[in-house]
């Protein structure tokens, strides 16, 4: 019953999506205004129907309606209610419905918000949204139907993969999807601008906040994924350069490039083609990511099962690429005659370099991700590309990026004079150099980490110095103190100071990555009760094993007493969970964080006879916690950028 109702909502929404595609086109030909309002209502109608369809599926999951195949495969009677709800995105079919739902929410907000504005662009924005929506609804309705029924109705369901039973399941996928889908807004506006031939800065100005918002969700989604991996998967890492991780990360790179290069276009009317290409690439990569995840052509722990969906996504991806780049080529005449770069030492050139670095990073990661496919198709040789490739290629690129992060926001537009450079960078550079020397004297002797930490310090110093100068000016002009001054500055120029805060967040994240990549140590041992293991400044003593029956699994927990520099830090309890449906246990690692380092314990085995031995893997990972702190700093910075707290000023920067 729920199934057929849900499926009919999807079918109706699909029809409305077709209306949303056709009506504005008819309206553009006939000049009939009613067509546009019909299309707008088609969007709102889809929103209502998709919301109802998603609710129907959630209702089926909550009430464990096992006549629906999707419910039977992803819940059991024992599944707690919140994991029944997250079952909506626990597998392929439901996750596509969630994607469509988020998409139509974005489309609805856009259509409602710009009812009176952008009269020329809006019909085409609605067409683009409707095309994407029709695609996803078509897939959900005909190829990958979450409302498919099963008969006979099984007595109990199979349940989610136990690894997915984690609190992060509630946040990581929706955040990431929101980031992916959010990129549709600037993409739709860009395409509309191309269709109409209005290639001034209007589409960029109106989608700026949307792009920052999408970027923010992408960042958050990836970070929460890293946190999940670190916290739950029990291997002590947060990033494995797994194909699907790459798929989630790749759109972030052109999106980040786009956020920077649109500022060059706003300010200097340059890089028009580049910006359009970036947003096309970013949007296409979200579809490509879905293709990678859903087609099963690459192996990955994140991969959903295979099916016809992969091929369908590939067709749609080609359509998007051909259509959008075709439009770009069609409008090439309108895009000519842009101002040129005045000097290599200028903000636009720093931003351009930042873009080149980001796109290079994208290219290398893309190549590494699909190389196994190319190799097998071309040479018939089966290979895989390991994490060392990605690390060795991206580390130098990201170091360049950190340097540009220090220079870009501060350096003058057009042409930076020697005086300008001296005024802005002399002190910060001297400070950063001093920090670098201190680090070297202290204990950082390897070249790359030393360079990395010094560059990070350089970024912080430029930001602090620039803000300090601005604060001094506020004090002189208005007699404001530090706090009031900061508030005024942030309100006067949200993007600049919000951007600074985001950059500080990125600095912290890179600090965490650099620290844990460079100085991690690990050790493995089998310990008998009261035996000890020493690693770094830690001493770990095995206290014993306990077993307990949990609602969904049997849990074997080991107790380890941790001493740091001789003083006791407490007891950590890594565990192994035995699920009845799984042949092998699932590890539950534990870690204890401090600002300087994490100690991370993984129980990898125990003696079943006597239960007096445990095999333990211990990792000491420095500075990891700063990654998560950096994430919160980014939240703050993004809020400063997008919240309507602004105060109009006569000039920017």
């Amino acid at each position, binding site marked *: 019953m729920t199934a057929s109702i849900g499926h009919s909502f999807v079918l109706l929404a699909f029809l409305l999506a077709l209306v949303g595609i056709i009506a504005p086109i008819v309206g553009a030909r006939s000049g009939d205004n009613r067509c546009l309002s019909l299309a707008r209502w088609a969007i709102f109608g889809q929103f209502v129907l998709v919301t109802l369809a998603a609710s129907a599926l959630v209702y089926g999951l909550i009430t464990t309606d096992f006549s629906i195949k999707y419910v039977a495969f992803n819940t059991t009677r024992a599944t707690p209610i919140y994991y029944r709800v997250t079952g909506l995105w626990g597998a392929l079919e439901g996750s596509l419905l969630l994607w469509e739902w988020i998409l139509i929410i974005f489309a609805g907000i856009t259509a409602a918000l710009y009812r009176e504005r952008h009269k020329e662009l809006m019909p085409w924005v609605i067409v683009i949204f409707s095309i994407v929506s029709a695609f996803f609804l078509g897939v959900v309705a005909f190829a990958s139907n979450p409302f498919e029924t099963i008969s006979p109705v099984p007595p109990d369901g199979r349940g989610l993969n136990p690894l997915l039973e984690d609190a992060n399941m509630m946040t990581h996928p929706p955040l990431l999807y929101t980031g992916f889908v959010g990129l549709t807004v600037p993409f739709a506006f860009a395409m509309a601008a191309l269709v109409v031939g209005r290639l001034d800065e209007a589409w960029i100005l109106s989608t700026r906040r949307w792009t920052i918002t999408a970027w923010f969700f992408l960042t958050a989604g990836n970070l929460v994924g890293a946190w999940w991996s670190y916290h739950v998967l029990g291997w002590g890492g947060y990033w494995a350069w797994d194909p699907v991780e790459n798929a989630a990360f790749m759109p972030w790179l052109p999106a980040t490039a786009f956020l920077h290069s649109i500022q060059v276009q706003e300010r200097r009317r340059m890089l028009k083609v580049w910006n359009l290409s970036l947003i096309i690439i970013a949007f296409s990569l979200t579809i490509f990511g879905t293709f990678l995840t859903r087609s099963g052509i690459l192996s990955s722990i994140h991969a959903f099962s*295979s099916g016809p969906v992969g091929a369908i996504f590939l067709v749609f991806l080609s359509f998007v690429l051909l259509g959008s780049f075709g439009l770009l080529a069609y409008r090439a005449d309108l895009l000519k005659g842009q101002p*040129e770069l005045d000097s290599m030492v200028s903000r636009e050139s720093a931003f351009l370099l930042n873009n080149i670095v980001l796109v*290079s990073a994208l290219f290398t990661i893309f190549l590494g991700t699909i190389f196994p496919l190319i190799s097998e198709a071309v040479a018939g040789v089966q290979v895989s*590309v390991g994490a060392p490739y990605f690390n060795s*290629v991206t580390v130098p690129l990201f170091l360049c990026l950190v340097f540009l992060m220090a220079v870009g926001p501060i350096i003058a537009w057009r042409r930076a004079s020697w005086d300008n450079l001296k005024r802005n960078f002399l002190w910060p550079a001297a400070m950063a150099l001093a920090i670098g020397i201190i680090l070297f004297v202290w204990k950082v002797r390897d070249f790359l980490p030393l360079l990395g930490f010094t560059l990070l310090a350089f970024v912080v110093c430029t930001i602090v110095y620039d803000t300090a100068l601005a604060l001094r000016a506020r004090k002189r002009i208005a007699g404001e103190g530090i706090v009031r001054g900061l508030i005024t500055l942030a309100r006067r120029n949200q993007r600049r100071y919000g951007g600074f805060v985001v950059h500080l967040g990125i600095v912290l994240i890179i600090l965490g990555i650099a620290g844990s990549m460079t100085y991690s140590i690990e050790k*493995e041992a089998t310990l008998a009760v009261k035996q000890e293991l020493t690693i770094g400044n830690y001493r770990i003593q095995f206290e014993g094993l306990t077993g307990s029956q949990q609602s969904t699994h049997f849990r074997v927990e080991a107790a380890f007493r941790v001493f740091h520099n001789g003083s006791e830090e407490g007891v950590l309890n890594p565990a192994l969970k035995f699920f009845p449906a799984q*042949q092998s246990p699932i590890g539950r690692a534990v870690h204890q964080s401090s600002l300087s380092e994490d100690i991370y314990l993984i129980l990898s085995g125990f003696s079943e006879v006597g239960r007096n*031995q445990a*095999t333990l893997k211990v990792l000491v990972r420095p500075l990891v916690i700063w990654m998560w702190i950096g994430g919160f700093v980014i939240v703050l910075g993004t809020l400063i950028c997008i919240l309507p707290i602004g105060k109009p000023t006569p000039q920017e920067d």
Partner: protein
Amino acid sequence: MTRSRRFLIGGVIILAALSYMIYGGMQEAIVYFVTPSELKAKEPISTDKFLRMGGMVVKGSLQKDLKDLTYRFELTDGSATFPVFFKGVPPDLFTEGKGAVVEGRIGNDGVFQATTIMAKHAEEYSPHADGKGAAKSFIPGKENSAK
């Protein structure tokens, strides 16, 4: 003209640097997938290539020393077997008679010195008629189709 030439030169330098990095990175990190019979057929085997070998852990071949955390076992693809040595903690799913993928180099003694063991989820795994098929099911990109 000079301006566009400058951009061209800049572009070429960037591309060259990038290609160099990609080439260097790939040299280090590319892992070839082989089966035990392919390795046997190629003897003597070079010891500098980083390999990934998949197969079933031969029943009765596993010798583990929990004190030193060393594991010796043989992998088979049905037609040939190859000895493997591993020091460390294997994944939860690693056991005799089950599929495993090992990563590492061939040692001078002709034993595969594994640095990593990857095991396959048993419930997702259906054995093929011949061991060769089972081994191939671990090849990247083929995993899902082996269900």
